[in-house]
């Protein structure tokens, strides 16, 4: 394939190498340095997509991030991605792209019927129809069709094979944009000794002057750029980030950057992330993000072959591509003359420059040069209409003073309505904008954060002015970051160019019904803006939302200000009165994978493993999440179900002995003279009576009186205590204690530290527990020597090793039980030693499911199902624990009337009379009523008790303690289950607690 529109010379593409690529299945060639868009243009391809609403044929309009039309689906297997801007996608060997939003083909798209029917589809038409017949079913049917017509590309269907990274960075000066202003700023800031990060969204620095004809310091821009980049790269305190877009400006000068590490390659090299998100904390930001050109609305201004003038210029100068053969330029300012000259020099016939301005305004250097080159200039004229079907074929020009239209044939229309500084990040930083009448655009004004704008982003459009503005901004930024300027250094210089004024022109009046587009991607027309104003959608935000102006993937970079100006004209007010919509991150769309970074998929949250984790896995445990921890649910044997395993394990604890990993419980050590007083204040029960070597169960409340957490606290020495918390609340309880000690009661002499990570812990439970333990520990564990609630240090024999251990006689299962704590590094050795010692006694490891069964049989409440944040200690049957001798956190508000009502839901035990208590069941008196059926309570926990051979549960029940003996229904409409249950006390086994005291 020949590149029919490639120029023989010029630009930064490497003509010595060719790259093969395809678009909609057709094979083409381009060169390294090409964007997909430039390569398509080099092959004479203009038609690249269909618009969102009317499915109108569309071509490449811009040469950068502002592209509204040239969105393609990149097809590379699982690496396919929709809506990629062809203007920013670097060409690589084998790139395969497809057009979007068309069927069956780009040239013949059935959806274009919408364009024919467009009179029925003005802005917001959907709010006025699709309401008949009544009922939600019908809208779902309409919506189904609407949704299929909308959208652009297709989402990948397979998991993203690439990975993404985050990186934190700190600098004194962050320079956003590596064009002439940004390079000059980075250079001067670095010269002051500042740590500088310079980022640019392109693969190479230099911005608009890459390949340009101007001279900097008397040399071609390319050599100045190269020298500047080399100098910066050699400075160890400068980080250069090409292919990196600053997308968001957050508080305290945190700027988010996206580095496209590998998007210019078919796939990332091994181990290389596809993209990297930088969190840059900058002392000060120099915003040198350049400016974006805007269009002018006229009939047919969306035909392929229509381009912004600056983009046409860029394709010639940067990529060596001729975007057409016969061009008409339509402009209201001098910048388009640069494009005209460059096209002219590249051999494109410039048939006419229609300039809206009068002759008197055309005194600038570039218009004069164009005139001298013999390019026809038509002052005071405009394009009123473009002709063509899939490509522009000609335009009708009129004199703005009136008169007949005159047709000129062309295959390229270059439009310039003026330039808008890319103030998006300035605005995101909360910087204020001001409207500049001369440039007819918004410029940076004042900013509360440390940011300065430079170059075109600051409203400077002359190269010399851009360079000196950037140069000065770099020094200012370094100085504000605390770096003094070295000896004076001159700014890079460029020849001054004289420029005529801009004449604001937003649209050209068209015949009725002709479509003049303001927003190309979302098909918003001048008439739509007028309709919104007519119907009262007059706030700029209403305009945006009613017409969808600026809500496409380009976020209105080319059209928004045109829409604002047209709204202002409709309302008869000045443009600044209308204001702008809020600029929000991201500046350009950001890949979700990059935002998530490493913390995606299985790494969404870190995973915590106990010291015995590998043992559990090796022994067939099914692991479940408990907060961030993994815990064994049960240890099913081959052929055994999880439920059967849990029942076997639970039964074994009651009959013989079992061992469970309880390392995940929160553990907090407390030391100091006032620990007992502190415990008195945080727990409902009393602590000043706890002896050394003893532990006690305690319940904590929140300030509102509801149960917060429970656990045991042990007194290890006169001044040293160990508190345990639930697994899920470990972090919250620690923060709560630190808050009380540091903020509320700093006078208390208490020091607290979390030791959850220090100790591996296992609970040994069952009638044989003592016999097992006695074989491995160094101390006497008889009932007399080590009674219920005793605590003591000992050594535990693990093979030949002696492990320091701490022993607690406490029970959750209701059986004779001990907790063994050893330093985490000895956790697995301890576990294996106890399992080995227990083998003759029939020991089995048990998981959280058996643990739950055992505690339900005992009526022990759990934070979550029973202590659900709405229950008081009294609701849970622990009212007696609340000491009357002292106050504690949460006690004062327990006096509120609704918390002392006899109608409260209280903890009870349930036994199924027939069938199984349903999971998540609700308690009702009569399940046969019509909805809504009053609910008396709900099943909080339930299990099959292998020890009672019964389906039992715990429940919260209105006036529950007064209902013991009553029969109610436990119902689960979801499972279509209803079971009669008998209400009783919550403890089913050994209510006197004799088994745990033997």
């Amino acid at each position, binding site marked *: 394939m020949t590149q029919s529109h490639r120029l023989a010379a010029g630009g930064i593409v490497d003509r010595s190498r060719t790259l093969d690529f395809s678009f909609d299945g057709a094979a083409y060639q381009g060169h390294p340095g090409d964007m997909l868009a430039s390569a398509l243009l080099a092959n004479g391809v203009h038609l690249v997509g269909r618009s969102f609403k009317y499915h109108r044929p569309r071509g490449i309009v811009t040469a950068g991030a502002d592209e509204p039309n040239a969105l393609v689906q990149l097809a590379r297997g699982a690496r396919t991605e929709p809506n990629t801007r062809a203007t920013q996608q670097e060409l690589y060997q084998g790139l395969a792209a497809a057009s979007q939003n068309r069927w069956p083909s780009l040239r013949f798209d059935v959806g274009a019927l919408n364009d024919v029917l467009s009179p029925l589809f003005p802005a917001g038409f959907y*709010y006025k129809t699709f309401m008949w017949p009544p009922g939600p079913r019908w*809208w779902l049917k309409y919506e189904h069709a609407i949704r299929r017509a909308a959208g652009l590309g297709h989402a990948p269907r397979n998991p993203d094979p690439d990975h993404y990274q985050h990186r934190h960075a700190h600098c004194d000066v962050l320079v956003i944009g590596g064009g002439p202003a940004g390079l000059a700023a980075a250079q001067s800031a670095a010269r002051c000794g500042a740590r500088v990060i310079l980022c640019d969204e392109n693969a190479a620095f230099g911005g608009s002057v890459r390949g340009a004809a101007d001279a900097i310091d008397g040399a071609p821009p390319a050599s100045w750029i190269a020298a500047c980049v080399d100098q910066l790269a050699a400075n160890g305190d400068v980080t250069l980030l090409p292919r990196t877009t600053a997308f968001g400006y957050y508080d305290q000068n945190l700027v988010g950057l996206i580095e496209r590490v590998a998007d210019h390659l078919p796939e990332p090299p091994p181990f290389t992330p596809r993209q990297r998100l930088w969190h840059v904390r900058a002392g000060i930001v120099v915003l040198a993000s350049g400016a974006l050109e805007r269009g002018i609305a006229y009939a047919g201004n969306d035909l392929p072959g229509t381009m912004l003038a600056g983009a046409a210029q860029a394709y010639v100068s940067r990529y060596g591509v001729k975007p057409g053969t016969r061009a008409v330029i339509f402009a209201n300012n001098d910048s388009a003359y640069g494009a005209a000259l460059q096209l002219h020099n590249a051999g494109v016939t410039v048939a006419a420059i229609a300039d809206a301005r009068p002759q008197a305004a055309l005194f600038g250097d570039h218009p004069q040069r164009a005139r001298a080159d013999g390019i026809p200039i038509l002052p005071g004229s405009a394009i009123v209409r473009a002709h063509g079907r899939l490509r522009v074929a000609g335009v009708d020009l009129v004199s703005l003073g009136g008169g007949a239209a005159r047709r000129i044939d062309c295959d390229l229309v270059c439009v310039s309505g003026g330039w808008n500084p890319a103030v998006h990040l300035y605005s995101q930083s909360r910087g204020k904008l001001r409207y500049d009448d001369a440039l007819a655009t918004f410029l940076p004004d004042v900013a509360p954060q440390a940011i300065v704008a430079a170059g075109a982003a600051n409203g400077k459009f002359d190269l010399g002015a851009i360079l000196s503005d950037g140069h000065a901004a770099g020094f200012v930024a370094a100085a504000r970051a605390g770096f003094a300027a070295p000896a004076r250094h001159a700014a890079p210089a460029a020849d001054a160019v004289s420029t005529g004024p801009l004449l604001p022109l937003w649209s050209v009046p068209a015949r009725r019904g002709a479509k003049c587009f303001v927003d190309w991607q979302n098909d918003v027309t001048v008439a739509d803006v007028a309709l919104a104003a007519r119907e*009262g959608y007059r706030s700029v935000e209403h305009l945006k939302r009613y017409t969808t102006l600026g809500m496409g993937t380009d976020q209105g970079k080319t059209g928004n200000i045109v829409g604002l100006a047209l709204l202002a004209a409709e309302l008869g007010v000045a443009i600044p009165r209308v204001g702008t919509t809020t600029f929000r991150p991201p500046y350009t769309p950001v890949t979700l994978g990059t935002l998530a970074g490493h913390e995606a*998929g299985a790494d969404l949250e870190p995973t915590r493993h106990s010291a015995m984790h590998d043992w559990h896995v090796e022994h067939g445990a099914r692991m479940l999440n408990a907060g961030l921890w993994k815990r064994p649910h049960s240890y099913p044997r081959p052929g055994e179900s999880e439920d059967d395993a849990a029942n076997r394990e639970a039964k074994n604890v009651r009959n013989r002995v079992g061992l469970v990993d309880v390392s995940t419980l929160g553990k907090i050590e407390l030391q100091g003279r006032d620990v007992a007083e502190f415990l008195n204040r945080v727990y409902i029960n009393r602590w000043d009576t706890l002896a050394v070597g003893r532990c006690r169960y305690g319940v904590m409340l929140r300030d*509102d009186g509801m149960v917060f957490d429970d656990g045991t606290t042990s007194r290890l020495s006169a001044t040293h205590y160990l508190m345990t918390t639930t697994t899920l609340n470990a972090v919250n309880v620690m923060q709560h204690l630190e808050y009380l000690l540091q903020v509320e009661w700093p006078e208390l002499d208490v020091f607290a530290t979390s030791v959850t990570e220090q100790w591996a812990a296992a609970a040994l439970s069952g009638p044989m527990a003592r016999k097992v333990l006695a074989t491995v520990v160094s101390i006497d564990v008889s009932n007399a020597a080590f009674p219920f609630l005793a605590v003591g240090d000992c050594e535990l024999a693990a093979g030949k090793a002696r492990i320091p251990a701490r022993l607690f006689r406490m029970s959750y299962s209701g059986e004779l039980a001990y907790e063994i704590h050893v330093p985490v590094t000895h956790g697995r050795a301890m576990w294996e030693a106890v399992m080995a010692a227990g083998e003759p006694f029939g020991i089995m490891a048990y998981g959280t499911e058996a643990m739950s069964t055992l505690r339900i049989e005992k009526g022990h409440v759990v934070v979550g199902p029973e202590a659900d944040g709405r229950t008081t200690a009294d609701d849970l049957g622990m009212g007696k624990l609340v000491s009357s001798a002292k106050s504690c956190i949460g006690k004062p508000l327990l006096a509120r009337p609704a918390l002392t009502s006899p109608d409260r839901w209280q903890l009870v035990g349930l036994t199924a009379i027939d069938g199984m208590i349903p999971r998540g069941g609700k308690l009702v008196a009569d399940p046969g009523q019509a909805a809504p059926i009053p609910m008396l309570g709900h099943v909080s926990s339930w299990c099959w008790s292998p020890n009672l051979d019964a389906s039992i549960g715990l429940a919260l029940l209105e006036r529950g303690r007064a209902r013991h003996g009553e029969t109610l229904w436990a119902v689960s409409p979801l*499972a279509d289950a209803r079971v009669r249950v008998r209400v009783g006390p919550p403890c089913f086994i050994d209510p006197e607690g004799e088994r745990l005291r033997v």
Partner: protein
Amino acid sequence: MRYSIFSLARNALSRHEHWPLAWRSPEPKRSYEAIVVGGGGHGLATAYYLAKEHEINNVAVLEKGWLGGGNTGRNTTIVRSNYHLDPNAHFYEFSLKLWETLSQELNFNVMYSARGVLNLVHSPADMDAAIRRGNAMCLNGIDAKFLSRDQIAAWIPELDTSSSARFPIVGGLLQPRGGTVRHDAVAWGYARAADACGVDIIQNCEVTGIRLDGGAVSGVDTTRGFISTRKLGIAVAGNSSRLAAMAGIRLPIESHVLQAMVSEPIKPVLDTVVTSGVVHFYISQSDKGELVMGGDLDFYNSYAQRGNLPALEHVVAACLALFPSFGRLRQLRSWGGIMDMTMDGSPIIAKLPVDGLTMTGGWCYGGFKATPASGWLHAYTMARGEPHRLNAAFTLERFAEGRMIDESGTGPKAWAH
């Protein structure tokens, strides 16, 4: 002019040059029978129902900016009534019933799309809670279904339903009638309908003070002068504390920022609403094709309507944990809204301790779906001077009495709900 396919076709013939204003922009009168502060969905609905249900037509809605510019235009458009506790369940179900007929009621297509709301369940404990809630819904006469992991995998193949997921999906609670509503249309539809009933909607009119006379409301000072009234309703969620403070009232509310975002538009890939409490995430696909998603608060008091990266990154990470194929899609826009976070996570729709003053607010994350019922009940309370059965529990006094409606059980930490 009544909206229909016929009026649309008729206007097409005249190039849509004869559509009337959807609402007037009147100058404020000196006095109104009732004033509603806040021109969002809740305020406009209040005014509409005052006129429609209670024949109080001499009403003004005062909006400091542009109508629908607060949380009405900043949410993720989800509607549902899948609540566990009775007051919330009955209230939100009433709201859902109003949503079902709202397009016809207002003659404005609000696009109530009953595409289902699926709450994913990630653990046995999570499943207990979800089934308990689903059972409560059924007993309250609200539609609910429990789906197994396999059913979910077949329905939404993009979801990672494998057991190797960080938080494996083990099932889900579905409310089929839940779904989405086009958010802006709600404000505009109520505004147009209220305007048609004679309500004055006054934009760019900020209330700067509330005047009291002998313990009763006598009017409001605004940026456009004093306006007198005896019935003042506050519907400014996000800013409820500021308005209440003008009447000397402190509320059990903190303002927090909640971010939301959309992806670039893509062809249909997700035709229901998927949420997960465990990874703090919710997502749906709009009619334009954008994936609309959100998650947790930024967790500090804020009136700034913009958030920071950590919360946003976590939302996206949660998205990709559930939908690993979405990694190559791009975020198009993100924004923040200001939530009234109450101390029990449930709203306040009630008389305040000043005669003639009422509020609807304290919506936490859930204000959008409440819009019709909030307006209906707020109007009832304003008109009758007493609450309706459906908002009797949502008082300000419930905290002092100990009658919190704490769905999540997280207690008096506003940002935890």
